[in-house]
């Protein structure tokens, strides 16, 4: 009896598996933490019962490394930032062109779409569309550090042992702006860029004493700030807005030299296998009602028209508390990284990490 039951169960299972295989399509997403919240996936799968969504969470560098390892296979839709498309495509050929007509381009914010087009068009073909945008700047606990204004405050001895940053290229660029330079203007001149990097490196090495620790991800950053161990930190605005919801003293401060703005995009990996499902997902998450759910989870602003108005109320309050129109006009969008620069920046970061301090 028992064995008969087991046999029946196995057969049923086999049939079930075969059945789902025959009809279902899988959409393999390679994206950031929070960019594919469960509630959105559930709604998407209800609207498209023949598609199952599989999510892999990652970051810019890992996304490119993963796609490079397979020549662009293994995923159907990826979400690198807008400045990580041109060089990666030129060098490793891991993406394929997108068909803008299949994306509801009319609902996209025109400025952001133009920005992405300018950065991600190769040989006349467009490789990316914008999805979410946000900025990097400073988060400060205004009850303990009320006068924070710019990147330089991370190295202000007043907050010794109470500041944090992420040791990646953003802090190099931010510090450069804080020193009164314009790194994006120097992109074309390697010698001048190296000279600027040297100055930034020296500043950040001198600053190391002031830093409690370098954070690696949004969770680290949140714990450091919520526990009060850190009062001023470099931060993504999305994380800062979430923190504002938990503690009204934790306010995002766009640096006076301009917050650094990034746009996370949608791209098709070169060997993706579910393009139709990918376009469906792109169009689905741009619907106003989904944008709200998505922004609630990412904390970032959707790249659609009136993206800020479509934020959930608490996030909208946080954005209003952080940005005025002047700050929004002063955003510094990341420019495409020319080949070779990343190596110079990597060396600079290594030197900072290896320098000793107390």
């Amino acid at each position: 009896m028992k064995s008969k039951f087991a046999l029946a169960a196995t057969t049923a299972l086999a049939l079930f598996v075969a059945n789902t295989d025959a009809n279902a399509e899988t959409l393999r997403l390679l994206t950031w933490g929070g960019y594919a919240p469960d509630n959105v996936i559930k709604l998407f799968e209800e609207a498209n019962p023949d598609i199952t969504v599989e999510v892999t969470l990652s970051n810019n560098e890992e996304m490119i490394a993963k796609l490079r390892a397979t020549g662009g296979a293994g995923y159907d839709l990826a979400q690198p930032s807008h400045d990580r498309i041109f060089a990666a495509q030129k060098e490793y050929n891991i993406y394929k062109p997108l068909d803008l007509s299949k994306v509801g381009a009319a609902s996209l914010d025109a400025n952001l779409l133009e920005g992405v087009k300018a950065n991600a068009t190769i040989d006349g073909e467009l490789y990316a569309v914008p999805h979410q945008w946000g900025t990097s700047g400073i988060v400060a606990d205004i009850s303990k550090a009320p006068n924070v204004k710019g990147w330089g405050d991370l190295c202000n001895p007043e907050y010794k042992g109470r500041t944090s940053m992420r040791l990646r290229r953003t802090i190099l660029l931010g510090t450069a702006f804080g020193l009164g330079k314009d790194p994006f203007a120097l992109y074309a001149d390697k010698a001048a860029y190296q000279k600027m990097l040297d100055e930034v490196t020296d500043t950040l090495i001198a600053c190391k004493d002031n830093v409690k620790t370098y954070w690696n991800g949004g969770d680290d950053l949140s714990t450091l700030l919520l526990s009060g161990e850190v009062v001023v930190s470099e931060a993504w605005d999305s994380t800062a807005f979430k923190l504002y919801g938990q503690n009204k003293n934790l306010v995002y401060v766009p640096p006076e030299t301009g917050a650094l703005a990034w746009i996370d995009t949608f791209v098709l990996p070169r060997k993706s296998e579910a393009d139709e499902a990918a376009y469906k997902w792109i169009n689905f998450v741009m619907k106003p009602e989904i944008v709200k759910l998505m922004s609630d989870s990412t904390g970032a602003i959707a790249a659609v028209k009136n993206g800020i108005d479509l934020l959930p109320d608490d996030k909208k309050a946080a954005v209003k508390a952080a940005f005025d129109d002047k700050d929004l006009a002063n955003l510094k969008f990341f420019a495409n990284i020319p080949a070779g620069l990343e190596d110079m920046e990597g060396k600079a970061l290594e030197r900072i990490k290896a320098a000793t301090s107390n």
Partner: protein
Amino acid sequence: MARTDVGKLSFILLFAPFALWIALLIILPQLGIGYISLREKVGPGEYTFGFSNYVAFLSEPIYWNTLLRTAWMSILVTAMALAVGFPVAYYIAKIAQRRSRAALFLMCLIPLWVSDLVRAFGWIVILRETGLVSSLLQKIGLVSGPVELLYNDATVVMGLVYTVVLFMIVPLVSTLDGMDNSLIEAGYNLGGSRLTVFRRIVVPYAMPGIVAGCIIVFMLTAGSYLTPILLGGKNSMWFTEQIYEQFVTRYNWESGATFGVLLLVFTSFVVWLGLRLTGQSLASTVAKD
């Protein structure tokens, strides 16, 4: 005739999984890494071959300093793991009652059931400035303000010892277990002091376990990634982190592969040197019948 054929067949069948494992999962990837490490990038998608990646490693003090630092701290961790692990192993194998031995041994293995990552986060919760130890010390009145116990080398060494000490205990227990108690009694009967008996009888007998444990622990430590990074903070430089940085952050597979080869060669060299300096050899210890 038929008999030897059967013998041959069973030998081949028994040997095949091992050979496949070594060839496919160890030798093949290492060859790939070695191949990439000799590749030099000239332009996008263009490569030549040569040793420039190795030259680049030698000409950049940050890289070899990190490698030396990693090796030095790994040796320290190995020594401390031996110092901590030996008494525990001796107790389990020789002093504890036969009945409680299995339970004690199992208790040593329990931490392995929790992933490295979770254990590292456990330490973070305990040691951070607003964590358990800091607030406890303040409550007792030993310190006036919060103390930060994370983000320094001492914490990294402690965290690593904690992670790897089991790999020291397990081989030690199994060697010490095989030692006949009458050997120790004979030592005492012949007038040996505790120290002499320990030095002349116990340690030489346990040597295969000590060597095996030290090699495993040293290799695990030098190749560990999570613990040094999570507990080490702003000044922690571990060589595996450099490899990760090269591969992932800087898209530089060539130099990442070079670092991988160098880590393997260098740690093997340290093991060889350790065996030479202590007058041991693999044949007389680990591979002893």
